[in-house]
C-alpha cells in the first residue's frame, strides 16, 4: 500500500477564482451568495445562489474550445490548470501512461441541455449545433482535462448527486494507494445555475429564498452554488522523490448506501461512512479535530448529520469542530466535496478552521461546535470531509496534516 498525498489544488467558485482567494474568503467568513443573474431568472421563485462572477470565457478559451466546453468543463479546466501547475508535474512517458482523471459531476452540461431545449422547444428551431452531445456529456470535463495534460491512464466520471466529488476522489485515492497509478487528477465540477437547473431544484421545496444557515435553528433550506475543485493526488514516495510541496495526506475513505429513502437522509448511513473512513485510515475517533460537514442547511440533513457525528464520536463529538462552508459558497452539488476539501487543507496545513457563517440561533438538535460565524485558529492533525447524497449514497474522506 502506498501513502497518498495532495501536491496540487485548484478551484473556481463563488468565493474566488483560485485557491488563495477562496481560502482568504473562508478565513474572513465572506458570503459568496447573492442575486442570481441569467436569462429568465425573474420567472424563478428562488433567485439566490453562489454564482461565479468575473469569469468571461471569451479570451480564456478560443472559438473551437467554446463550441465544446460547457461551463462545467470551463470551470474544471481553469481549476486543473492551477492544481497541475502547483504540483509541478509534467505528464510524459510512464507517468502519462499510468496517470488518469476521475471527476465528479451530478448534472454535467446542464446549461447546454437548457440552451438547446430552449432553441428547439421555445424558439421552434429545428437544428442544434453539431457538438451538443460532446459538450453536455458528463465525462466531457474529464476528457478535455486528460487531453490537455496528456493523462492516458484510467479516466472516468462519477455521478452520485451531492457526493459525486467525494466518490471520485475516493476512487483516485484508492488507485494511487494500490499502486495502480503514480498520480491522479481528481475532484469535481458543477454548473447548474441556469433557468432549468434552478427550476428543477425549486420544485423540491427545499431551497432557501434568503440564505444558507447550516445548523442554525432558523435554517430554511439549501442554496445552490457552482464551480470546481481539482486536486493532484500523488504517491508519497513519488512526491518526495521529486521534492514536491505536500499540502496534506489522504489517509482513508469509506462509502455507504442508505438503501432506504430517495431523498431523506439516514443517520446510520452517514455514521457508517464516517466510522468506515476512520477504520480505513486506522485512526481513533478522538484523533479527529475537524469535520467539514455536508451541512446543507436543510432541516433534515443538519440534524441527521449531527446525530450521526454524536453516534460515531461519542463524548469527543463535543470537542471536535464541525463547520459547513456551504454557508459561504453554496451547495456545488456534484462539485461540492472538492471545494470543501480546501477547507480541510486549510485546517490541516494552515491551522485555520473555516466558519459556518449565517449562524443565528442554536438548535438543540445540532448541539456541536459548528465554528459559528468566525474562523478559528486551531492545530488539527486529522480531518474528515463528509458528503451525503440524494439517493442515500455517502462518501467520507479522511486526511492528515503532513
Amino acid at each position, binding site marked *: 500500500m502506498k501513502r497518498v498525498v495532495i501536491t496540487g489544488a485548484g478551484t473556481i467558485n463563488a468565493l474566488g477564482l483560485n485557491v488563495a482567494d477562496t481560502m482568504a474568503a473562508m478565513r474572513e467568513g465572506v458570503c459568496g451568495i447573492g442575486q442570481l443573474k441569467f436569462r429568465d431568472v425573474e420567472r424563478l421563485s428562488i433567485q439566490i445562489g453562489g454564482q461565479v462572477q468575473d469569469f468571461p470565457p471569451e479570451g480564456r478559451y478560443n472559438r473551437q474550445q467554446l463550441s465544446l466546453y460547457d461551463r462545467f468543463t470551463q470551470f474544471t479546466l481553469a481549476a486543473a490548470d492551477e492544481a497541475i501547475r502547483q504540483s509541478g508535474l509534467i505528464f510524459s512517458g510512464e507517468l502519462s501512461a499510468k496517470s488518469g482523471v476521475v471527476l465528479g459531476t451530478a448534472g454535467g452540461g446542464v446549461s447546454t441541455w437548457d440552451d438547446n431545449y430552449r432553441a428547439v422547444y421555445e424558439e421552434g428551431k429545428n437544428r442544434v449545433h453539431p457538438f451538443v452531445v460532446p459538450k453536455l456529456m458528463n465525462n466531457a470535463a474529464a476528457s478535455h482535462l486528460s487531453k490537455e495534460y496528456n493523462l492516458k491512464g484510467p479516466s472516468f466520471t462519477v455521478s452520485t448527486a451531492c457526493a459525486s466529488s467525494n466518490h471520485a476522489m475516493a476512487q483516485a485515492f484508492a488507485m494511487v494507494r494500490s499502486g495502480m497509478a503514480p498520480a491522479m487528477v481528481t475532484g469535481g465540477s458543477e454548473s447548474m445555475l441556469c433557468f432549468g437547473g434552478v427550476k428543477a431544484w425549486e420544485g*423540491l*421545496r*427545499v*431551497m*432557501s*429564498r434568503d440564505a444558507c444557515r447550516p445548523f442554525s435553528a432558523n435554517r*430554511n*433550506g439549501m442554496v445552490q452554488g457552482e464551480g470546481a475543485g481539482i486536486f493532484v493526488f500523488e504517491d508519497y514516495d513519488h512526491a518526495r522523490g521529486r521534492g514536491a510541496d505536500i499540502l496534506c495526506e489522504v489517509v482513508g475513505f469509506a462509502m455507504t448506501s442508505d438503501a432506504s429513502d430517495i*431523498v431523506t437522509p439516514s443517520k446510520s448511513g452517514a455514521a457508517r461512512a464516517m466510522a468506515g473512513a476512520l477504520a480505513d485510515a486506522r485512526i481513533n475517533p478522538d484523533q479527529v479535530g475537524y469535520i467539514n460537514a455536508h451541512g446543507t442547511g436543510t432541516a433534515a440533513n443538519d440534524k441527521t448529520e449531527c446525530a450521526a457525528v454524536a453516534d460515531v464520536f461519542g463524548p469527543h463529538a463535543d470537542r471536535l469542530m464541525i463547520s459547513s462552508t456551504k454557508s459561504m459558497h453554496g451547495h456545488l452539488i456534484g462539485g461540492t466535496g472538492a471545494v470543501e476539501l480546501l477547507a480541510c487543507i486549510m485546517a490541516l496545513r494552515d491551522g485555520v478552521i473555516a466558519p459556518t457563517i449565517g449562524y443565528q440561533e442554536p438548535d438543540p438538535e445540532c448541539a456541536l461546535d459548528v465554528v459559528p460565524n468566525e474562523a478559528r485558529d486551531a492545530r488539527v492533525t486529522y480531518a474528515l470531509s463528509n458528503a451525503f447524497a440524494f439517493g442515500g449514497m455517502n462518501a467520507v474522506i479522511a486526511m492528515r496534516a503532513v
Partner: protein
Amino acid sequence: MSIQDQVIAILADQAVLEPADVSMTSTLEDLGIDSMGVVESIFAIEETFDISVPFNANQPDASDFDISSVASIVAGIERLKAEQG
C-alpha cells in the same frame, strides 16, 4: 367541481384512497401522506388552481399556507385565489 371536492380528489389520489374516505377534518398524516407526498400534493394544487403556493418543506409550520387539515388547505386556496383576483 367545488374547490373542496377538487382538493379531496387530489389528496385521495395521492393517498390512494377513495374520495369518500377523505373528510374536511382529515390531516395529511391521517391520510398517510409523507413529506414527499405533501410536496407532490402542493404541486397538484398549484397546477389545478393555477396558483403559487408558498411552501418550504424545511419549515412546513412557518410557511404562509396552512396544511394542517383538508379544511385549512381549502381555506388557503380560497385566500390565494381571492388575492389573485
